[in-house]
């Protein structure tokens, strides 16, 4: 089964280096790229992304804002995000982990990161997401029929209410 990953970085060279490293070491990977965090949420949902690699220092919308937006969105909150930033920027890494990043790596990429840790972190993040999706499926579907269950509809109605800032719908059993 193909795994989809998204690289969000304003530098086309950095995106390409990371893409080549991952494609070399991991099989059945489809890589998508974004040069900024604008309109990212729609893109993540529509490509069925399993994990993201996110640069912190970007113009327009930085990695912290992207991470915060993802964590606020119930459809995206579980996607593991690996952040990257300059090797000297320890505070940024700490801040990203506080905001819910799955892991991090530093730039420039070390030999160890290129050959071992980055591909393995990506692989582990994808596996985590797939397991999470499996659990989520079981939570929201009826095992016998495969249809959405009561919990799904209750939560979906809550989401619609929050989105519309209203309480048009009420669900009581």
């Amino acid at each position, binding site marked *: 089964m193909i795994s989809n990953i998204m690289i969000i970085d304003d530098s086309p060279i950095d995106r390409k280096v990371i893409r*080549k490293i991952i494609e070399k070491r991991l099989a059945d990977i489809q890589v998508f790229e974004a040069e900024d965090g604008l309109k990212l949420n729609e893109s993540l949902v529509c490509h069925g992304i399993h994990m993201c690699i996110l640069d912190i220092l970007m113009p327009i919308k930085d990695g912290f804002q992207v991470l915060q937006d993802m964590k606020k969105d119930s459809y995206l909150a579980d996607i593991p995000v690996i952040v990257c930033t300059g090797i000297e920027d320890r505070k940024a890494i700490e801040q990203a982990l506080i905001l819910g990043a799955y892991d991090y790596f530093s730039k420039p*990429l070390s030999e160890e990161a290129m*050959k071992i840790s980055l591909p393995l972190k990506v692989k582990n993040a994808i596996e985590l997401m797939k397991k999470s999706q499996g659990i989520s499926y079981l939570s929201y579907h009826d095992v016998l029929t495969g249809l959405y269950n009561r919990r799904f509809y209750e939560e979906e109605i809550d989401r619609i209410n929050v989105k519309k800032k209203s309480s048009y719908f009420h669900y009581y059993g």
Partner: protein
Amino acid sequence: MLKEVSRKVIAEESSVSGKEAANSNAFASIVAALMGVSGLDKAISEELVEDFCGQAIKLSCNIKKHIMVNNLTEAGLLLHQLKGSAGNVRAQGIAQYALEAELAMGILDHERCSSRLKKIDELLFDFLKRTKEE
């Protein structure tokens, strides 16, 4: 587009020949270093370094434009990007000069910043001459 720009730069520089062998070695040593640390094959490493040169020319021009209009925030972001990309493809000379330019910009030392940007351009021209030889 970038390749066209690269070729123009190479054409302009072709009259100042003399160090071609050294230039070729400089490019080859960066490619070899990238291959060594990344495990990527030669063709991909060469492609990455060539792409980097094209992007670095563009970044260098934009950094100077932003400095000229005193937009140091944007110039600083682009310098940071140049430093990071140079480090990733193991263009250590450019990464070092970009770091020095970034530090100089931080303390508003424009003279030192300009001199480091000039050094970056010189290194880039050297790398691009390698394409001309091929």
